């Protein structure tokens, strides 16, 4: 029983990380119609930014902040220079993001060397809560991802920009009619999505080793989650994130650990077949 609870918590901890990445993907696709396969690169770069900041002696939270800001700028740059031109053509958006992956990944490998690096986490060891032994850093990651997700939801509900995004999600034309400046919102969405990815990268770096090629995994999982949750649906992405974390955790613990990524794929395939609009989606973007 205890083992079951522990495994669940393990799953939730990792799930928070996944959810943060998925948020960026689902937003960008659902609202701006772009399948940005290069999203994983924002995670990777965010991880490296954190690594360099921490290696230079600064505290971890500063590294994470830098990562988020840097990746936000990166996202804005990508949007303006590249994706703006592919609006409305998912094929082109997909294609160009493939090119971006190749550029970013290989520049990173050349600049940072392919050897895996570790970042010293801000906290270490474990805490004991009753019979449960929980890794302190994972708890922190869970906490931070929940804060990020919660903060983002708050932003959507309260802030003007957030409301504009929700308006656009419901109806692009309608939003434009009431004065929402759609191009600006698109850029905002890219920026925020990328910043979230950067923050996720920082969190990722605090737990696991980083390499220039690490972008592939969060990307794959992110897309699974975005699709599972319903493209464009924020609650969907969040729920899917935690669900995937749990599935992987339980699958690895009680079944075969060498098939770890497979559990997510199986779930995705079945979910898409039977729930084509995802867990929460209604076929349209919903926030």
């Amino acid at each position, binding site marked *: 029983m205890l083992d079951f609870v522990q495994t669940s918590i393990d799953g939730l901890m990792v799930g928070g990380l996944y959810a943060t990445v998925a948020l960026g993907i689902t937003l960008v696709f659902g609202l701006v119609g772009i399948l940005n396969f290069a999203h994983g690169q924002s995670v990777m770069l965010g991880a490296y930014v954190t690594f360099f900041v921490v290696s230079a002696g600064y505290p971890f939270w500063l590294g994470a902040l830098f990562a988020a800001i840097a990746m936000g700028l990166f996202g804005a740059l990508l949007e303006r220079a590249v994706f703006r031109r592919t609006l409305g053509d998912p094929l082109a958006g997909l*294609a160009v993001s*493939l*090119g971006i992956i190749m550029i970013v990944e*290989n520049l990173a490998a050349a600049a940072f060397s392919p050897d895996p690096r570790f970042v010293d986490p801000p906290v270490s060891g474990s805490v004991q809560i009753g019979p449960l032994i929980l890794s302190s850093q994972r708890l922190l990651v869970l906490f931070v991802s929940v804060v990020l997700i919660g903060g983002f939801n708050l932003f959507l509900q309260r802030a003007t920009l957030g409301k504009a995004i929700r308006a656009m999600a419901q109806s692009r034309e309608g939003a434009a009619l009431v004065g929402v400046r759609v191009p600006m919102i698109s850029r905002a969405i890219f920026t925020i999505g990328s910043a979230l990815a950067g923050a996720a990268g920082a969190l990722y770096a605090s737990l696991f080793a980083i390499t220039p090629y690490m972008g592939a995994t969060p990307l*794959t999982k992110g*897309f699974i989650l975005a699709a599972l949750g319903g493209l464009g649906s924020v609650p969907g992405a969040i729920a899917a994130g935690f669900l995937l974390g749990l599935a992987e955790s339980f699958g690895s613990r009680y079944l075969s650990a060498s098939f770890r990524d*497979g559990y997510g794929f199986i779930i995705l395939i079945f979910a898409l077949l039977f729930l084509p609009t995802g867990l929460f989606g209604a076929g349209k973007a919903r926030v």
Partner: protein
Amino acid sequence: MTGKVDDLGRAAAVVREPVRGGASQKILTLFSLVQFAGLLLLGLLLLAPLLYGSRYVVYLGTLLALQATLAVSLNIVMGYAGQFALAHAAFYGFGAYASAIFIRDYDMTFWSSLPPTACLAAALAAAVGYPSMRFTGGIHFALITFAFGELLRLVAANLHGLTGGPQGMQLSYAPVPVLGIDFGSARGMYYLAAGVLALSMIIAKLIRRSGFGRSLLAIREDEVLAASLGIDVTAHKVAAFSIASVIAAMAGAVYGPFVGFVSPEMMSASDSISVVGMLIVGGIGTTSGPIIGTLVFVGLPELLRVAKLYRLVVLGLIIVVTVLFVPKGLAGLFGRMIPTGPQRGR
């Protein structure tokens, strides 16, 4: 078609006859000459590796031919039908594994393993395609094929008894000589690969010219409208996907004896994505686009003497530039204007 044509009319026109603009009639005659020249050059291109003594060139040619086959076959489902199939490398690997397993466990020869491999690949494609292509929009299909491809790779890596697990299988068989030609030698393998490529191009061309192909194009333009014209959209999409996947599997069957080794790594999502990249750079939906794209993608790193990693950066730049500024791909730069892109708002 002149003047304002409503969407329905346009789609109907696509179904009934190939789109032809008035002004391009003259250009077409010119193109016919060039077509002939192009055919000649293609023949030379295919023969070139055989004229050269170097084994390396033959190997490179075989590699290019196999990769080009993947691009040409993917074009059938992505270029003609407009569906993003992101599991192509998985079918490539599936063909290699299936053929190898038939030979090892069922005492078949290389040639006799091809039909069952093709059947299995078709069945697999239909099984994956049918449920996922029911939906319009293609996103579901894209994501499901993406997930499926990775799943297939993981399965291959974990079924140690059947597939040799992550270490893959070392293959020591070669195609049995047919008609006196030894397909097992380096030259022979090249003939085989070039033959498969030529066959796939012929199939693609036949599809393109047929009613089936025109229906696919109509589906690419607008699925709902195509359905309203009486086309069984799902059946057509699944058929295109199956054909493409079977060709990929056949190429995979040739890959086996060529490299002598199959491993789950050849089925990775990044390889599937690379094939998509080749198509895009070359020009999706065009005839020679896949060939050009493959030459650029695979051949360029060979030609560029720039330091290692930067080659791929350059390739990435080429992709970005091509997509943004030359959306019809390199083939489109010279070629006839073919209606492109699934949903350009019109």
